[in-house]
């Protein structure tokens, strides 16, 4: 499922260990980006997923390797969860020729077709109709693939969200809309964007789509919802919408923390840190005797090496040559 040749999250492990390892790997990658970002060598905006790892881990564990996914500006976790190539992602953030977009995209434009990650773009909600189109083509071409559209809750405010969900519902398309509701759009709270008496998941329900709300910080709960959703979509019964409640720890864009600037309280942040998806899941696994300390330490050591290798390779890699500026404006035919 999650495993690729390079990805140390082993497919053979039990689901709990896999979920934990997937989350830990995402967290370690994002922390490494945060640590290196002040060096000013990753010269593009970055939107980190720290605190929101369970959504990607749980959803991607429920997918087949040939299933598809798309995302938005905050896409590192989704790309990694789906099995996207880590060195190609880090090199892309460094603007290098070896990056997944050959340096043309940066952090906000990740792609790995081998892993079924068809693309992420930073215009809010713009990949939702495109993901719906992927599912439409799969349905037309009678493939039994499922597409996941990862989105933030602010994307549900855009018109294309509704146009896409309506179409997916109309044609019963094999797509799962995964909405990570982290309460904020940049510094704007839900209270200035959506009515308090209506939940996000109800929007999709209004379009006749099977919709659920779940704890986005509980990887097993996410996995259970996503498994059922993928099975539902794959069997031709139509789209599913999942609203996963979660919280972004760091600043909206960048590597630092921004609780001091006044749009949210330190107390709110600390309360959500208590709900750390990784720490809590680790604690649960320990309590149920499923936590293998040695295995976990070995895993973390392997990921640490994987990450430092990826950064070293990205830092060493050449920048794209200026003469290549005009490459790829049109597809070569």
């Amino acid at each position, binding site marked *: 499922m999650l495993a690729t040749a390079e990805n140390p999250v082993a497919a053979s492990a039990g689901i709990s260990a896999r979920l934990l390892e997937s989350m830990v790997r995402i967290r370690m990658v994002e922390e490494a980006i945060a640590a290196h970002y002040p060096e000013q060598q990753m010269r593009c905006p970055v939107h980190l997923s720290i605190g929101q790892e369970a959504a990607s881990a749980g959803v991607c564990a429920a997918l087949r390797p040939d299933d598809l996914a798309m995302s938005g500006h905050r896409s590192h976790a989704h790309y990694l969860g789906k099995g996207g190539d880590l060195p190609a992602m880090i090199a892309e953030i460094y603007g290098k020729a070896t990056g997944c977009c050959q340096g043309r*995209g940066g952090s*906000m434009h990740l792609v790995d077709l081998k892993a079924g990650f068809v693309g992420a773009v930073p215009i809010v909600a713009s990949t939702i109709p495109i993901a719906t189109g992927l599912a439409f083509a799969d349905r037309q071409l009678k493939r039994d693939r499922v597409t996941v559209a990862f989105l933030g809750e602010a994307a549900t405010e855009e018109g294309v969200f509704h146009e896409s969900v309506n179409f997916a519902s109309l044609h019963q398309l094999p797509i799962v809309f995964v909405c990570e509701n982290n309460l904020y759009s940049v510094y704007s709270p839900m209270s200035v964007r959506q009515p308090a008496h209506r939940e996000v998941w109800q929007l999709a329900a209004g379009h006749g789509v099977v919709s659920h709300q779940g704890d986005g910080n509980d990887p097993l709960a996410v996995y259970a919802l996503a498994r059922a959703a993928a099975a539902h979509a794959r069997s031709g019964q139509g789209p599913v919408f999942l609203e996963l409640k979660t919280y972004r720890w760091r600043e909206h*864009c*960048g590597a630092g923390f921004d609780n001091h600037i006044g749009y949210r309280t330190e107390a709110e942040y600390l309360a959500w840190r208590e709900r750390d998806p990784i720490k809590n899941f680790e604690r649960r696994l320990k309590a149920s005797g499923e936590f293998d300390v040695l295995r976990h330490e070995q895993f973390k050591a392997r990921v640490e090496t994987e990450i430092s290798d990826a950064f070293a390779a990205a830092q060493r890699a050449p*920048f*794209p040559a200026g003469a290549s500026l005009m490459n790829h404006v049109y597809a070569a035919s």
Partner: protein
Amino acid sequence: MKPASRELTYAAAIREGFAVALERDPRVLLMGLGVPDPKGFFGTTTDLQKQFGADRVMDMPCAENGMSGVMLGAALNGLRPVLNHQRLDFAMLSMDPICTQAAKWSYMFGGTMKMPVVFRMILGRGWGQGPQHSQCLHSWFAHIPGLKVVMPTTPHDAKGLLIAAIEDDNPVVFIEHRWLHHIKGEVPAGHYTVPIGPARLARAGSDVTIVAFSYMVLEALEAAEKLAEHGIDAEVIDVRSLRPLDQSLLLASVAKTGRLVVADTGHSTAGMAAEIIAIASESAFGSLKAAPRRVCFPECPTPTSPTLSAEFYPRAGHIVAAVRTTLQRPPHDDDLLVPAGAELDKPNPAFTGPF
């Protein structure tokens, strides 16, 4: 009595323009994602909500298309709204309300209604803004009869044109370049307007006319300094209003110099530089001593990588090289030289990311 003048940054001048407009006219309303947020829209809206209240300075849902239409209805029904976009790219979602609705409203209803709305957009550049956060599509709006389109370069014009835009009874697209926000200049206190239409003579000269748009005016002035070292006296015109477009200053200048270089922060094909050259060709053909030149973006999307974006964006040196060509002078190797240690992807020296 002439109002006192003092130095302000472009961002502070915009903020002051908003404060003046909000103060003078209770119908003025500011809307936009992040308008009241702690970062203050690059410092252009800081504390306006505190000063004027949450019902006049408002955040909104992430819904550019719908909210643009809502602003049109509000404008028809007694308000004078300004819809703010942190990037022009986000306003692309609302091309129908801006171009197909607002721009046509007065005409298609036979002048029975006014549409006093401002769409404010910021052009991104640098630090990996990339393909989707740095599009410069001002020529799209300038193409549409019924819209007015301004791109002020100086803090003085930013404030004066902003107030003029808000007081105008027509839809105005107000476009700022992110790299102008920290630029300082003399700004009169209190209320004043800069009329929408006339261009500005940024530098007088006799050998060549450089017509420039927005941030490229700064590059053109730098180019003029370099050219002066080589004994070439360049005139620089800051277009500042794309629609209506001031032909008289342009034509008078071309009649004087006989040579024309246009520097735009945008693509050349079907762009504003092409429009300027068309005007000069149609109305000053006899004065032209050499083929006009364009200094524009290459015909590819903005790349993210710093090496590619350094290659992508034209600089003062490109303008110098284009001027040499119009003067039939040989190119200089050092025109396009980048000084060692120069960071071409930062909006200002203090910038350290991330946005």
